[in-house]
């Protein structure tokens, strides 16, 4: 199909189409009836500029730039309140995740979006060894922006072993694990038309 990604006409369907085809669970966006229950259910609601229901309306209105650079989806705590209350049973959490991921792939995420950075780091951390090394993750964050996340106390509580920093948890078939990710990525990129 000939969707023009650059200049979506207002209230015409091309951006909605783009979302339906390229964003996880994006085909649900059209089913929203603007009741606003998601907006009212989000614990971080007070902090973002666009509620999910508003994001969906913006998508229909063809506001591509504003949607993909919005901080809304980065505020999702995956609490699923919106999902269980939505009268149309939209998988809102996943749509928000999907939009975030899509914005990331297009490089449209505002610089320094903290959740974006943490999320990326988290994935890289797990992709490296197949499991998340909490200590490395937090220390990395520590050096990044001086966050003191009570991590020392956890160490003191002997629940985290500092020796983890050298080596630590890893899966045996790392090669296979990474091959799976690579293959999955390859298929998904093809689907999203992001190859080449």
């Amino acid at each position, binding site marked *: 199909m000939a969707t023009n990604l650059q200049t979506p006409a207002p209230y015409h369907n091309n951006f909605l189409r783009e979302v339906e085809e390229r964003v*996880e669970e994006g085909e649900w966006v059209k089913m929203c009836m603007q009741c606003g229950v998601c907006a009212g259910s989000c*614990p*971080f609601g007070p*902090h973002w500029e666009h509620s999910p229901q508003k994001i969906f309306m913006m998508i229909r209105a063809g506001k591509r730039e504003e949607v993909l650079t919005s901080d809304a989806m980065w*505020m*999702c*705590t*995956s*609490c*699923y*309140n919106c*999902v*269980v*209350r939505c009268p149309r049973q939209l998988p809102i959490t996943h749509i928000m*995740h*999907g939009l*975030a*991921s899509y914005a*990331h*792939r297009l490089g449209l995420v505002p610089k320094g979006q*903290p*959740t*974006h950075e*943490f*999320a990326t780091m*988290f*994935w890289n951390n*797990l992709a490296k060894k*197949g*499991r*998340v*090394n*909490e200590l490395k993750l*937090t220390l990395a*964050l520590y050096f990044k922006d001086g*966050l*003191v*996340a*009570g991590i020392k*106390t*956890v160490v003191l*509580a*002997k*629940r*985290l072993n500092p*020796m983890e920093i050298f080596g630590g948890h890893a*899966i045996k*078939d790392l*090669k*296979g*694990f990474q*091959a*799976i*990710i*690579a*293959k*999955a*990525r390859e*298929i*998904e990129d093809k689907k999203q038309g992001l190859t080449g």
Partner: protein
Amino acid sequence: MAKKEYAFYPGCSSQLKASASNYLTSVNSMCKTLDVKLTEIPDWNCCSASIGYCEGGELPRLAINARNFAQAETHLPGQDIVATCAACWLSARETKDRLDGSAQLMKETNEALAAAGLHYNAEVEIRHMVEVLIEDFGYEELKKSMKKSLEGIKFAGYVGCQTNRPFGISGESFENPLYLDKLVETFGGEALTKYDQKVACCGGALAFSEPEKSQKQIRDIVESAYDHGAEMIVTPCPLCQANVEVYQSEINKKQGTKFNMPVLYYSQLMTVAYGGSMKDAGLDGQLIRAEKLEKITAK
């Protein structure tokens, strides 16, 4: 009753030497009493939690979860996968639902798994430890092995998000699930009847990236527990446990509160009720000591 066997998916935080290792310890003691055999899924990998979406996208996330299923199917045939971590359980349940519901995704996922010579046959069931306790045993059955009562301790049953939504424990409501309260009462403890933060989100997913915002959540959760007269918080989720426990001191520092509310796992309560030692229950791993529970172990 006959031994029950499950394919165990501990997850990154519950594995040995990780932040929720005390969860693992208490689960193991609890299972010992209940004669439950947990066998770790060989070479299991991270579920990518709910934060993995950004770089992980859709299919890679599904694929790495499916890898665990494939491993379980091959090495522990016929056994349900049991997760103790809410995030692991949720990611796995979601993956299973999505794959079972979409031939297309199933095909693509198996294409990816093939890269490591694996295949997912959609046979395995995904369950949370709490489901095992409630569905495979039931409160009455669980009570049978009780040695010590938790009498005289007021618990705030903090269910949080991910064991509760979107799937939840069957028969429970999203807004007012009662299973933690029922567990507490089963073992003689007192559960708060009114606890308005019961299903509030602790903001765990954004604890690092949006500390102020998530700490606001945590403050409400702890405050309400105090307001309603709780002495301890009990939870089924390692993320909730870690966040709510770890950040109290920081909130105290920043906001001058005097929080010192122990946050425990249901499995720790049960281990104590089953007569386990402080160590068995992983109470030694608490940042905020649960003295009242420790006393009971000493009895």
